[in-house]
């Protein structure tokens, strides 16, 4: 089974200052989701809006569960 596309993109983006700047400049969550999809496309990684939103939810959940 291949790697989760969002995870694959995360690994690329954390080391890519230009991609990081693009994503940081997104003004709200919807713009951010679109930007992630675009950055993914530029890297040859297809990511869906649902995957991005679920990724955000998962990261939020992981943060909130850190004391559990």
């Amino acid at each position, binding site marked *: 089974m291949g790697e989760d596309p*969002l995870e694959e993109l*995360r690994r690329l*983006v*954390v*080391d890519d200052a230009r991609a*990081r700047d693009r*994503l*940081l400049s*997104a003004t709200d*969550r919807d713009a*951010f989701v679109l930007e*992630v999809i675009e950055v993914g496309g530029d890297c040859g990684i297809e990511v869906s809006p649902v995957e*991005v939103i679920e*990724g*955000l939810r998962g*990261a*939020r959940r992981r*943060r909130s569960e*850190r004391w559990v």
Partner: protein
Amino acid sequence: MTKRSHALQGWTPIAVEGAGGPTAIRWCFTEGVEFDDPFFEQTIDRCLRDPFRLLFWRETGFDALAEFASVSPGLRPTGFIFHMSRCGSTLLAQMFARLPAVLVMSEPPTVDGVLRSGVGDRERVDRLRWMISALGQPRRVEQAPFVVKLDAWSILDFALIRTAFPDAVCVFVYRDPIEVLVSQLARRGYHTIPGTLPPAWFGLSAGEMESMSPEHYCAAALASLCESALRAARANELTLIHYRMLPGAVSDTVAPLFGIDVGSAERALFAAVAERDAKNPVIPFVADGVEKRRRASPAARAAVDARLGAVYESLEHHRRGDHDRP
């Protein structure tokens, strides 16, 4: 040592995960973020409201932390703030955090994660140095003094912290124990919840912990912190700061010890911070010592008398001795 570029520049370690197994360090991209909230965790929560910082995290092992420390050494810590909790230590940290030239990290959980990482002391010393180096990456070019406020129970690891940073100045903030105990009983801190920390750290067996009243457990935990501080103070490795010395002691005693220059501008900033509640700066500071003593139950007073009174008096005796010296 000069700094070179490193992939972790702009990133801050926010958690040490996997205690008991392979440990991983979780990093958050914090470039452009000031650590000026009362607590490190509040700054990270603020940071993670940004979807990029939330979604695009990093995870490394300690090897990457070590490499980052060698390539991009952070500021050397000039001061450590130890404390017994609920005693003014957050005010102290917040006053320094208001100064643009001072980097303050207030109770970063990654330091506790290292101290409790279950490896030998030598490895913990190395890991602590690397972690403090990563936390000490300056947020502004002019930042030089670096102050770390630790979790209350970190005083139990004083010797190890001292070994890692023999040149840093250490202070211990404390307060009338009945006032601290009343505050803890009203809202427990992590260290005063039975079972969160090993009872042996407080000189207790598991059975003793389970059979103790809340008043006695809290008092036993606080007493252990104070006893560790007293040992360090008697070894001349730590300066004692009583709550009632605040806020004046910040500019008159602690800042000079930490090598922080305080002029009229800094005093004005300090005064503004002291007017607000340190943990919730949107509300004004209200002195609550009298009210806390009034609310103290007979059980709380008995627990203080049995477990905390003597060590508190010893701290006071030592502190007054310090001050009486010519």
